């Protein structure tokens, strides 16, 4: 199979074909046709198409988008808000940055359609502060959309009013967590909150709020244009459409690729990434980013399919694939990952705040070769506690990579246990 066959360009079809600065070029490449089509119908009909399409959120959690839209439409309380989560901070991910920088109007069109479907009049694009170029491009694109009558009052003479603004993050990974994102917009420290209630009923300023990832919104115009039925033919039974994958690490051709869901990780690494430099062996691959699981080389034939992956407790998350060759020291990589979470923990809940501190102490004991088998038992209990008792996804997912190393590369830890272990008399 050649590259062309495993790449399926839908969301990235206009990348480097049109000039991102030009709304006219976007329009001449089928742009804003989905919005016109959507506005000729009802919100219920649009939501029904998204449900038929089977689109699931592309930010990592994979919640069905149509259900989210429906629950915002049905929620009581005005005004309602729509927020695009462009706080892409998960190490290994850069797809949202490319989507904003290379085809900003595709995202804007997707958000407007969703706003129309749930009758929402105000929206935000929450972009992380580090993405200065993306902020400038989106800002300009929003202004073009206003001038052309796609944003503002009485959009396309429909009587529907909608506008949105960019909200710039100030450097905090946890703001990608939806509640931390909401309180940041409200001008507070970005800290997570217990759920439920969910943002769909009680979000920004306690009003119904739809929050979706950049890639999720970018799928919407295509669903409307091709119809939910046709869209649902792409991908697998449990995972519909394409997925943007961010390939990085020890790889010949790192980059952003769009593949049909159901493609195997090995095909992505070998055919698109052209394998590992100098033909070195792959030791470990991390999926989704720092919060995602790691797998050994002999599991690379697994397909990007939520059902198949969940059978062995894996997810493809937001689509990052970080390839690591046989030169890496796994415990050193884990330490880097846990240091990242330790820095980014908001500090609100004990399992995450204290758990990460203790994880670093324990990891150092293994790295220094002074760990005992008790340390290993404590580490496993600690990680389970963090996973079960942390308030938000950060603390819950922070131990994932370490837990998976213990599942697939257990000897990395056991070989470091001191021989004069207190349990070995």
């Amino acid at each position, binding site marked *: 199979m050649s590259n062309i066959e495993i790449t399926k360009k839908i969301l990235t079809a206009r990348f480097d074909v049109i000039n991102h600065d030009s709304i006219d070029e976007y329009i001449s490449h089928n742009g804003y046709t989905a919005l016109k089509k959507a506005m000729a119908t009802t919100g219920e009909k649009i939501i029904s198409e998204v449900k038929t399409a089977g689109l699931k959120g592309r930010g990592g959690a994979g919640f069905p988008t149509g259900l989210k839209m429906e629950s915002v439409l049905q929620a009581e309380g005005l005004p309602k808000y729509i927020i695009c989560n462009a706080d892409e901070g998960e190490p290994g991910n850069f797809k949202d940055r490319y989507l904003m920088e290379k085809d900003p109007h595709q995202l804007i069109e997707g958000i407007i359609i969703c706003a129309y479907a749930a009758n929402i009049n105000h929206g935000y694009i929450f972009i992380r502060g580090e993405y200065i170029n993306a902020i400038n491009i989106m800002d300009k694109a929003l202004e073009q959309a206003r001038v052309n009558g796609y944003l503002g009052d009485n959009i396309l003479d429909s009587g529907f009013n909608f506008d949105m603004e960019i909200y710039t993050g100030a450097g905090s990974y946890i703001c990608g967590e939806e509640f931390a994102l909401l309180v*940041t917009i409200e001008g507070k420290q970005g800290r997570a909150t217990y759920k439920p209630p969910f943002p769909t009923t009680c979000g920004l300023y306690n009003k119904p709020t739809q929050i979706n990832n950049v890639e999720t919104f970018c799928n919407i115009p295509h669903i409307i244009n091709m119809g939910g039925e046709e869209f649902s033919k792409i991908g697998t039974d449990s995972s519909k459409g394409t997925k943007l994958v961010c390939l990085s690490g020890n790889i010949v051709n790192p980059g952003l690729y769009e593949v049909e869901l159901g493609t195997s990780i090995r095909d992505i690494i070998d055919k698109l990434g052209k394998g590992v430099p100098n033909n070195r062996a792959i030791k470990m691959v991390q999926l989704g980013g720092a919060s995602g699981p790691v797998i050994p080389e002999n599991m690379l034939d697994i397909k990007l399919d939520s059902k198949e992956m969940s059978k062995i407790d894996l997810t493809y998350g937001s689509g990052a694939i970080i390839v690591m060759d046989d030169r890496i020291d796994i415990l050193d990589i884990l330490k880097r990952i846990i240091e990242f979470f330790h820095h980014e923990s908001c500090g609100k809940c004990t399992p995450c705040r204290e758990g990460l501190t203790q994880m670093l102490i324990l990891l150092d004991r293994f790295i220094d070769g002074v760990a005992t088998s008790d340390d290993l038992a404590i580490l496993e209990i600690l990680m389970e506690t963090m996973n079960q008792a942390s308030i938000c996804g950060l603390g819950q997912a922070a131990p994932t990579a370490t837990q998976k190393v213990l599942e697939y590369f257990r000897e990395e830890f056991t070989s470091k246990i001191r021989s004069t272990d207190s349990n070995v008399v």
Partner: protein
Amino acid sequence: MQVKEALDKYGRTPDKLIGAMLAYQKSTLCNYLTEDDIKEFAKETKLPVSRVYSIASFYSLLSTEERGENIVQVCYDVPCYINDSVNIVNELEKILEIKMGQTTKDGLFTIEYSSCLGCCDKAPAMQIGATLYGNLTPDKISSILSTYRRKKDE
């Protein structure tokens, strides 16, 4: 830019505070918010000083400590790490004669670790102001830094 000017531009409601603080901080020569700045933001927005300070100290793009004119943010997350970002850090420390987190004596540069810059396809990467530098090797660092030195001289 004055604190008042930033708030006039962004608005005085709590949701505009972070944007105004970022814009104001950028306009200061030393890239940080002083205690007086924080008090003024609080007074102007009618928020408690503790609330404004809690924001200034929580977010990593805001600082309550004096920094250099140019913040060199070096990505240290896994994709950059396995592409030897440690060599980039060493080279920066060597050329600038400071350690990570410190500011050069002339006040021109501060080097900081950054969370993932979303440039993993061009790892290792760093960002100075709005400019992203990818596919870095230690031998490229000196000439990148000198462009900022020249800008200063001009």
